[in-house]
């Protein structure tokens, strides 16, 4: 028996032996599922143990998960310089430029089946955020004569003007959000990559 006089700590050694760790994702079906864990049971519960360990609700593959970036995915038009803590979203084919200053035209090439679903929404709006500075982007659907891997001849392009950021120089994360009718969020903060702000040297930043 333990010599610990605190009754809350009496069974802590039993927890360490019986705790199981579940895999993070299971892509069998969308939605949420409560897994039948190898639960230590009520006799091992004490007030010092977080409740989430005893009622594990596991998140399964959703459409949002499919939009998140797959580690090691091809980035096609971008260099490794834009890579960040997360992989580029699967919705993003690439973007350009990778560096520049406020006032430069920014283009995002998109891919995948989600784009046409979003375009069917009423009042769909695309917003691109440069580390907290959000700008509205204009959507274009174009056709090209040159087929490319993953996107074929379709070109789904977002265009915006790069906003004034909190920094004049340095890398900032760029994310995409999509809103539907009444500003309702469809998708929020899909990570694209980093954009490197650098000074223009010609235009005072206050003009933007």
């Amino acid at each position: 028996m333990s010599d610990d006089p605190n009754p809350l700590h009496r069974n802590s050694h039993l927890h360490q032996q019986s705790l199981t760790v579940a895999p993070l994702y299971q892509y069998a079906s969308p939605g949420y599922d409560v897994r039948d864990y190898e639960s230590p049971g009520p006799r091992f519960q004490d007030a010092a143990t977080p409740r989430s360990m005893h009622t594990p609700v596991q998140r399964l593959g959703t459409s949002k998960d499919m939009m998140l970036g797959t580690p090691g995915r091809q980035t096609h038009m971008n260099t490794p310089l834009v890579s960040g803590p997360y992989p580029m979203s699967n919705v993003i084919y690439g973007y350009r430029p990778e560096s520049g200053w406020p006032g430069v035209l920014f283009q995002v090439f998109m891919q995948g089946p989600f784009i046409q679903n979003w375009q069917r929404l009423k009042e769909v709006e695309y917003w691109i955020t440069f580390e907290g500075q959000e700008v509205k982007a204009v959507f274009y659907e174009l056709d090209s004569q040159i087929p490319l891997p993953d996107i074929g001849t379709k070109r789904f392009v977002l265009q915006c003007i790069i906003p004034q950021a909190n920094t004049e120089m340095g890398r900032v994360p760029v994310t995409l959000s999509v809103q539907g009718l009444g500003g309702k969020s469809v998708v929020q903060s899909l990570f694209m990559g980093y954009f490197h702000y650098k000074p223009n040297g010609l235009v005072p930043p206050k003009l933007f």
Partner: protein
Amino acid sequence: MKTYEYNGNTVAMLQWLEGKLPQDIHEPSPINRAELCDPNSDQTIVIAMKEAPLQLPQFAQYSDFSQGISPMQ
């Protein structure tokens, strides 16, 4: 690269963007070749002027006095 100046006039900037068809889309590269500057031309392009404050004519009939102040006092 070309720099577009919109003087905080977001509405005009979006209207301009809607009319600017994306260029150099066939084989996308990290640099948009259509956005590179011509050395002989201006790098900064003004696409919108500062938005003037809206002055509606129907409000001109009202005086500058607040309704709580009588000009006779």
